[in-house]
């Protein structure tokens, strides 16, 4: 009689510990997930900021370099394709949608860097106050994007390690936590466009 009570007590105690561990692991995953969201919103802010800078930049360049139609159109088209993409938290879990998003943004980056390279050929443009301001804002924004992307990747890495490492992966499986996506190093996109003379 007394013995069964002790055994039941011990089992109950173990269950209590397991449940307590499960709950705290789950909560840890929830905060890691939230951290991803806030890191993501920083990334998104910077992309948005860049999106808003472009119309002015395109107009300014057009004023001095009308003949560069192709380059200007490429930027406008790349910007439009970025605008079409809706980014919901779901996208962060969907490899295909995420790759599409990244491809569009990287496409815009390379269109913009080509525009800046072309601008080098126009001394009047290069000394235009308005252009210089926009250029420094754009450079600053590109740098912010890369900083926030790096921080986002670090946050995602922390989360993914948590949901994949063994005991935590059980809780993650029950809670429906799915692996989040990284930004790939945009090696091709950031390659300086070739300039032919």
């Amino acid at each position, binding site marked *: 009689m007394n013995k069964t009570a002790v055994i039941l007590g011990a089992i109950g105690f173990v269950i209590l510990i397991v449940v307590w561990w499960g709950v705290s692991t789950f909560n840890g995953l929830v905060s890691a997930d939230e951290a991803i969201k806030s890191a993501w919103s*920083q990334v998104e802010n910077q992309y948005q900021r860049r999106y808003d800078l472009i119309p002015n930049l395109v107009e300014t360049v057009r004023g001095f370099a009308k003949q560069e139609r192709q380059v200007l159109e490429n930027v406008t088209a790349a910007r439009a394709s970025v605008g079409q993409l809706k980014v919901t938290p779901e996208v962060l879990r969907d490899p295909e949608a995420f790759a599409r998003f990244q491809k569009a943004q990287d496409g815009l980056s390379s269109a913009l860097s080509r525009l800046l390279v072309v601008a080098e050929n126009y001394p009047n443009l290069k000394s235009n106050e308005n252009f210089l301001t926009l250029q420094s804002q754009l450079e600053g924004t590109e740098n912010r994007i890369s*900083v926030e992307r790096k921080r986002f990747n670090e946050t995602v890495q922390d989360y993914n390690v948590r949901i994949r490492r063994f005991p935590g992966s059980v809780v993650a499986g029950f809670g429906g936590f799915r692996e989040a996506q990284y930004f790939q190093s945009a090696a091709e996109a950031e390659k300086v466009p070739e300039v032919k003379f």
Partner: protein
Amino acid sequence: MHRYIILAGILSNQALAQPAIPRLEQRVSDFTNTLSYVEWNSLEQMLKTFEDTTSTQIVAVMVNTINGSSMEEFAVKVFEENKIGQKGKDNGALLLIAKDDRLVRIEVGYGLEGSLTDAACSQIIEREITPRFSEGNFYGGLLAGVTSIMSATAGEYKVDSRGREAPFIAMALVAAFAVIFFFIFLPIVMSRRKYVISRQGWVYNPGWGYRSGDWGGGSSGGSSWSGGGGMSGGGGATGRW
């Protein structure tokens, strides 16, 4: 799997290429033996006074070279490592110079992005700093740069009136909680459970420790300086001379 490999590759590459990140103990750190004591001291005192009155932390660092790595990344790392700016306000700015690389960067904390815009930084670099640097006038360039940064940020953040008393308020709160804990919470729980001692950690919860950041930066003065816990997000501008 590939993702991890790629990511690990990026991280290790950066680790290899990056020079050591300096741990700053002053507002003006000259690792190149360029400034005389009088010059260093005048900049240091100017920035200290500015920080005491506005709580904005402006820091100037001169290194010899960044070994061909990215100036932008290096600046973010120096900022991260030293947590320039007050915690929560992120009102810090870093003026970073790589003398032999002839590179200069202004890195701006999140909280100052409104007044110290990328365009403003770029102008300060091109109009105030690099013309003097190319004449070899490093003190003049630093002085002009720091002064312009100060006037750009001035007014963005004032020391709020609670600023100085904050630690005492925090201590009073901790004391109040300790009283509640020992005389109300503890006896109640003690009467039910025995292993409550482990909960004592709650009193020392790191949540209360954040005030230490305020002590570290800002008004403490003295010879030793440390950042207040600020963050930057890559804002600012880079220039060369």
